[in-house]
């Protein structure tokens, strides 16, 4: 048997996940030594037809990052699925929808209206609007369809494993690659990270008071954050209690609150609802007026609680029937 064949693909995402592969640094040499990369558009010159010409199941593992926003991404995900033994959703966007998933608060029409007509531009509104087909002198040009709704990878194809994070850390990636090479993978459908909340591995956990109560909510730019003390105890909303561990508290160590990129643990169905529940329950007021006043400080609840997981949430998107009513 030859070396395992591996593919990488980039859907709706920022490219940070591609960067995460490079972040393996010198360890990437071991990976390259051990596997045969057969498709990686961002780094190597392979074409779609190279994949089309492969046998079914010829690729051992495909790592797909990014959410599914365009018809092209759906097509490529399905193609790679057909040709791969294992498909791993790589990173928050692929796993849960990620930042592009917040586009589900709008639809195609409202997004196009904003992006092509309303935003300030050097070129005044010239009416240019992406179309899936346009005739030019040389023939017909095509663009992929832009969907109303962003989907996670597992809403489009069967997905075997998930590597969480924005982006996944080199350590998790290396662990996953080693597990694949040794054939020691957990049951299908697993998220390849610990199944405990981030607080469990957070260095500030010891400073959390016995009874955590919020008298006020502060956004990170409003205070000098004490680098030792639990962020929630300082009034800064931290998603740690509702987020899976495995990043080793990278953001908290950088003195910023967790924003939830690793998604929920396996026992939680909806990360945002669980985080909302946790935060609401520690608010130290009982009168409706006071409760409303402190909640006014949470200016964007969806953006805060579902920053990376809106398409994977129970509601998945803003109610389409009401999408045009308000922004």
């Amino acid at each position: 048997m030859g070396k395992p064949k591996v593919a990488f693909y980039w859907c709706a995402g920022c490219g940070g996940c591609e960067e995460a592969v490079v972040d393996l640094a010198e360890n990437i040499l071991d990976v390259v030594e051990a596997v045969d990369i057969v498709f990686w558009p961002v780094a190597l010159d392979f074409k779609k037809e190279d994949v089309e010409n492969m046998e079914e199941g010829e690729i051992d593992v495909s790592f797909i990052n990014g959410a599914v926003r365009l018809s092209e991404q759906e097509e490529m995900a399905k193609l790679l699925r057909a040709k791969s033994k294992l498909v791993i959703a790589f990173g928050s966007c692929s796993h849960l929808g990620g930042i592009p998933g917040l586009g589900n608060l709008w639809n195609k029409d409202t997004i196009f209206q904003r992006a092509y007509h309303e935003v300030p531009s050097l070129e005044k509104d010239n009416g240019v609007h992406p179309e899936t087909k346009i005739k030019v002198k040389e023939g017909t040009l095509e663009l992929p369809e832009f969907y109303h709704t962003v989907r996670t990878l597992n809403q489009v194809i069967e997905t075997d494993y998930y590597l969480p994070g924005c982006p996944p850390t080199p350590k998790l990636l290396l662990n996953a690659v080693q597990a694949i090479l040794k054939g020691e993978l957990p049951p299908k459908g697993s998220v390849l990270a610990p199944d405990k909340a981030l607080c469990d591995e957070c260095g500030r956990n010891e400073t959390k008071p016995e009874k955590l109560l919020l008298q006020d909510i502060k956004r990170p730019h409003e205070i000098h954050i004490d680098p030792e003390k639990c962020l929630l105890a300082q009034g800064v909303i931290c998603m740690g209690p509702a987020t899976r561990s495995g990043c080793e508290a990278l953001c908290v160590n950088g003195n910023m609150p967790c924003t939830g990129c690793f998604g929920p643990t396996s026992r939680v169905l909806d990360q945002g609802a669980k985080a909302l529940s946790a935060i609401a329950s520690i608010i130290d007021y009982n009168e409706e007026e006071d409760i409303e006043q402190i909640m006014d400080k949470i200016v964007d609840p969806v953006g805060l609680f579902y920053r990376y997981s809106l398409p994977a949430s129970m509601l998945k998107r803003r109610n389409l029937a009401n999408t045009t009513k308000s922004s």
Partner: protein
Amino acid sequence: MYEPKIVAIFCNWCTYTAADLAGTARMEYAPNARIIRVMCSGRIDPQFVLNAFQKGADGVLLGGCHPGDCHYQEGNYKALRRYHLLQRLLEQMGIEKERLRIEWISASEGDKVKKVIDEMTEEIRRLGPLEIAETPAEQKPAVAAS
């Protein structure tokens, strides 16, 4: 005529007992609410509410003891805070605020159960069904993924 589906989640000690009282007193009220009993309104996880909407409920009614009367001291205050934050979230998600309601109903207030359920049923009948299209038809996969 359109009949709204309402999921009502009531606490064991006050609101559920009140609904029981409304029943034994043979009060007539709208049959649109499906009542689920929990031990305390503080047990109502926001996931329950979202799950109800996702599974086809047109409205969700939460019922607990009056402030200060919680059997577990402060469960209803937790429910109240979650309700307020959830309302803000639902607004962003395009779900009308009338679809989620919280009421304090003590064990003796069977008539209030009747009044609240009747009122909410009419209100939601006016709003019409909550049609959450998860994925618009145009992008539904034509064939299931292999």
